[in-house]
Structures are given as C-alpha cells and as structure tokens.
C-alpha cells in the first residue's frame, strides 16, 4: 500500500525534494515486494481456484484459470449444498464471534481500565497471572476445558464455544497498557472533582479515549474466534452447531469416505466466502488498528 502511494506521488516528491530520492532503497523495495507476493499468492490461488469446477480443478494449472468460469455457480452450490448447511455454519460463526469476541473485548476493556487506573492490593499478583495466562496456548487448555464442560453438561452446545472465547488474557493485557497511557489521570481527577461517579467517568470520559485500543482488541478476538478450530473440534459433535472452520473440514473429509461425495470445489469456494468478512473487517477497521498499535510508542 505504501509502495503504490509513494509511486503515485513520485513526480511531486522529486520536484520538491530531489534529495529524498536517494534515500529510497532498492534492496528494501525488492524485499517488501517479495513479501507482498508471498502474502498475496495464497489469496490469489484461492480466488483463481474458487472459479473452477471440480473437473477444472483437477485438469488445470493451479495458478491460472481453467476454461470455464464457475465462481457464481460454485457460490450458489456452496450456499445450497446439503440443505444450505453452509449458511447455518456462517450464522453460528457470527453468533460465536458477536457473543464471544464482543464479550471478550468488553471484559478486557473494563478489566484493563480497572487495573490501569485503580490501585488495590494484589494488583501485582493479578499482573503475574495475566502474563502467565498469555503464555499458555489455548490448545493446551482445550482438553481440560472439555472435561470441565462435560461435567457441567455443556458440551455440544453453543455455550461450550462462547464461554471459553470470553477469556482473552492478551486482550486484557493490551487494554491495561493502552488505558494506562491513553487516559491521563488528570482527566479522571477533574471528572471526579466535577462530581462524576466512577461509571459516568468511565463511559463518558474514558471510553472515547479508549476506542482505538478497543478496536484493536476487538480485531484480535474476532480473528481468533472466527478462525477457532480446535476448541469446537473438541467440544461439538452436532454439525448444526459447527462454525465454518469445522464445517469446511467435514466437507473436506467427505472425499475420504467410502460412499462420500468429493466436493473440493465447494471446500475452496467455502474457504473464500469464509475469509471475505474477515478481510472486510480489517479494511474497515484498519485506521483504528494502526493508531492502536502505535499507542504508547510516542510520548507527548
């Protein structure tokens, strides 16, 4: 993105400040270009192959189009195959994301703000626990979580996905650090002096200041929940509650079953449809995200 922007403004830049031209590094441009191709190649592959029929997939070169352009019929087939189960999986995923990632962000915001702006005994212990929790991969907790949820009788229900998704130690840590910098103590003090209660201060004064951080945490948790595979794999049995990740996997597994129907074209098209909302979320929230990442890097 920066490369194209720079190229577009090149004549201007050259005329006004010719000296800067020498600072452009060929090596770096080359390296970033390679990186760009490397990251975009899988996406291009996915787009190209989503336009092929199953026969076209087998009979053509992977990085170029087959003769027949079947993207739209593939999309239609994906949405209607097996009684339209894909739509159900999409709605399930949305449910898990809205409740799970949304809830995780809300909890991380409240807790992070509280930890950053209030002093209380045991704060250091909380910090240690949170840092420790960041280090434990979710995969390692999936099995103990399963046994616990089985004990509660909650496996094979949406709660088995939503409740564990509510916990985001990394999000909490990020909000904590962000709140410490983004909300000056002086503002909170003056709000208190003006007679605002703590909740009023939080919602009216602090929350707007925190919004870039919130969007950042939201993006992280949305991506994590959207792409979650292992937890649902362990928790869910009923395909009616599958998220997209598990659903696509089950379509893929069909090809390896006696009597099962191979639907590779639908798996690929389904994967494309699965990432479209994520790409949209990134493009729309990217501005906030950048300022969120840069937070704390510059002291005013």
């Amino acid at each position, binding site marked *: 993105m920066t490369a194209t922007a720079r190229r577009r403004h090149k004549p201007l830049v050259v005329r006004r400040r010719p000296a800067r031209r020498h600072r452009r590094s060929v090596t770096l441009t080359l390296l970033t270009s390679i990186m760009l191709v490397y990251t975009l190649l899988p996406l291009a592959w996915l787009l190209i192959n989503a336009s092929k029929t199953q026969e076209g997939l087998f009979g053509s070169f992977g990085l170029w189009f087959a003769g027949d352009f079947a993207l739209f019929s593939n999309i239609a087939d994906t949405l209607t195959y097996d009684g339209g189960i894909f739509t159900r999986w999409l709605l399930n995923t949305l449910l898990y994301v809205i409740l799970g990632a949304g809830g995780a962000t809300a909890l991380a915001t409240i807790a992070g703000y509280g930890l950053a702006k209030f002093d209380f005994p045991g704060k250091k212990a909380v910090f240690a626990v949170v840092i420790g929790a960041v280090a434990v991969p979710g995969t390692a907790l999936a099995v103990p979580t399963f046994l616990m949820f089985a004990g509660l009788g909650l496996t094979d229900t949406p709660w088995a996905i939503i409740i564990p998704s509510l916990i985001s130690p990394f999000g909490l840590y990020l909000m904590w650090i962000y709140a410490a910098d983004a909300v000056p103590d002086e503002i909170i003090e003056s709000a208190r002096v003006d007679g605002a209660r703590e909740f009023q201060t939080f919602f009216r004064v602090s929350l707007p200041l925190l919004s870039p951080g919130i969007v950042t945490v939201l993006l992280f948790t949305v991506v994590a929940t959207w792409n979650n595979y292992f937890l649902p794999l362990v928790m869910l*049995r009923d*395909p009616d509650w599958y998220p997209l990740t598990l659903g696509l996997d089950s379509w893929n597994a069909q090809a390896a079953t006696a009597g099962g129907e191979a639907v590779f074209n639908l798996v690929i098209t389904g994967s494309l449809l699965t990432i479209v909302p994520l790409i949209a979320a990134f493009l729309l929230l990217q501005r906030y995200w950048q300022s969120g990442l840069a937070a704390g890097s510059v002291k005013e």
Partner: protein
Amino acid sequence: MRTTRSAALLLGAALIVAACGGPGGGTASAPQSSASGDSVQAALDAGGSITVWAWEPTLEKVVTDFQAKYPKVKVNLVNAGTGNDQYTALQNAIKAGSGVPDVAQVEYYALPQFALAKSIADLTPFGADKLEGTFTPGPWGSVRSGGAVHGLPMDSGPMALFYNKEVFDKHQIEVPKTWEEYIEAARKLHEADPKAYITNDIGDAGFTTSMIWQAGGKPYQVDGTNVTVNFADAGTQKFTAAWQQLVSGKLVAPVGSWSEAWYKGLGDGTIATLVIGAWMPANLESGVKAGAGKWRVAPMPQWEAGGQATSENGGSSLAVPEASASKALAYAFMKYAAVDEGAQSRADNGAFPATTAQLNSPAFLDKKLPYFGGQQVNQVLAQSAGQVVSGWSYLPYQVYANSIFNDTVGKAYVGDATLQDGLKAWQDASVKYGQEQGFSVR
C-alpha cells in the same frame, strides 16, 4: 492441524485404556438381563428417541424410512466426524460420561479396541448371535469375538482390481491375474508412459494389512489381552517381496489416497489401477467424473495362478455404546438399518452390502453400471466377498497402531529402508505401546 489431530487421537487412546481399567478383567461377559427379541419389539412399541453417530451417507434415507414406519421413535442422526475424528469424540464422550450416542458407526478395524475396553455392548442378549448366515463371512467374522457380537455389519469391502481400461488398451497391457503379472504390467506401463503408474502408494496401513491378509499372513494373534505381533510370517513376506519391487522400482505414484492429486490421477489415467474395497464404485462415480466409461473391475490378483483368495478392505459396523440408556431401541434401529428394509435401501443407493440376501439377489448382481461401460461389476465384487481368507484379526488398539504406520513403514517409501524393515519397526512400536497399555504382547 495434523499435529493437533494426532494430539487429540493420543488423548483418545489414553482414555480408552483408562476406560479399559487395565486388562486382567478378561472377557467375562456379564450375564445381562434376559433381553430378547421381545424386549426389542417392546422398545419399538414404547417409542423414544435415540442418537446415532455415523458418517455413512446412505443412512439418511434409512432414518427417514425408519421414522415413517415407527412414528413413535425419533432418530437423531449426527455426523460426528469421519473415522478417527469420530472415535476420538466417542472415547472422549465415554470418558466424560455425557453425550454418548446410542448407536455409533465403527469400522471393523476399530471394533476390537472398543470391544475390549467394554465401551460397546455385547448384542447377543438382543438375539444378534442368531443372525449368523445373514451376513457374508468376512464382515461377520469382524464383529464377533468369542461368543459375543459387538456390532452389526453395515457394509463390506471385499477387494477387487479396479482398472482403467482405456489406459490398458492404449498400451496393450493384459489385465493381470496374478501379482507377478501385476508387477510386469506396472513396468510395462511406466516404460510406455513415464507419467503413468500402475497405482499409487505412499504407505497406507489399511491397504498393507489387507494385502497381508490376502497373502495368508496372520501378523496379529489376539486372545483376550494376550496379543502377538509378528510381521515375519510367510504371508507377510510374500507381500513385501512383491510390493518392494514396485516401491524400489518407483513404479507406484507417490500420491496419497483420497488426496486431490489422487482424484486427479484417477481421472486422467496416470493412476491406472486400484486394488481396493468393493465400496469404491460409488466414490468413482461421484468423485472421478472424468473417468466415466473408462474404468472396469476384475478379480483381485492372486498369489498363485488360479487361486481364489481375497481379503476385506474397510467397511463399517453399527455398534451400541455400553453407556447408552436405550440399548433395545438402538438395536431395533440397527437391525432395521443393517438387516431389514435398510439393507435393501442402502444397497439401492450405492453401498456395498454385507448381507447375503442383497448380495445374491439378481437385481443387485445383474445391475449394469454405466460408469463401468455397462459392466455387471457386482458379479465380480460379490464373488470376492465369498472368497475372503478367514482367520484374520486386528489388534485391540489398531486405531493407534494405524496412526503410527507412516512413522515406521512410511520410511520404506522415502528412504533406503525396506518394507520388511519398516514392518519390523511398526511391530516393535506396536508391541511397546501394547505393553505400556497393560496388554501382554509378544
């Protein structure tokens, strides 16, 4: 993803042994309440609801028909994953004590694992032992152990040679009748067209064990918790000596079965034959449309000219988990699906039956399949079903053993090790694992 999968599998394996409670309990089948055919009928009359875990696609229609016939019964059919995924889920559910289905699809190779752990119920109290003769010998032998019946065979996979006639005709290759001729055909084909291979193989536990089975090898001897693993017997060596020539000569395509590349090869003629179970026609029809009209079926190649030995490859049974609260009703559904109307409906929809009635019916045998150029393929496949070598058994932890096949025997396909070396490594690893689980393994 693969690593997390096998992690889940390992967990499952650990869990069954926990459920097994260590061997030594022997196989004393507890004398259960004298449930019989009457109790099954009573359960049907009373009605209720059962959950069935299965991935077999033809069961959907069976469930609909069953519910139409018995409106009081509600069958909740759930695809809880295919093969290993489902076994892991089932073992986890059994361990957790909640969410256990009333009926589960279990492949024959995995059945002893669940049976020995007493995770699935003996069906003799419901009269399953009286079904002998209803099923062909291969599948029936797979669900029986001692006096117990641990599942009802749902389909079967007697092996046959599927070959691409177009490729064979083009290079003027005779359809091989023996394995010697098969290797000869492999050489001839690959010389004529360096892109074409007689078949694909990168190491497949199910295929290898089925081949040893046909060759008369009996590497696994199981008596309760006493297990012997021996891949040095004559049958195994017969197989390795022949197959090694194909692997060393690079005459098999380095493509994994069921992969996209595999489907592609089956369609474009670069994989010219498959020695595989009788359920394959349905998969070819739906997955390899480019091969329509080109494929034919011939009897499995023999170790001796004029021989008539085959083996089973794949196939599943329906079993009732011990934790099910509605065993009689579960059995009623299974019997409907595997023996009564369901068996016919499933055969009509492309499943390869395990029941002699369907297998010998003229409608089934004389069916001409357009995909196979109008050949009556069921004649060949049904003949194979009657020629399965008897006396084969799988390990009581075959699911785990198969999961490590590629770490051991797989090396023979990529390095200097021979198949026989690889099998020895597999044997050692299987023995070690069995001992760790408390089996007495030699």
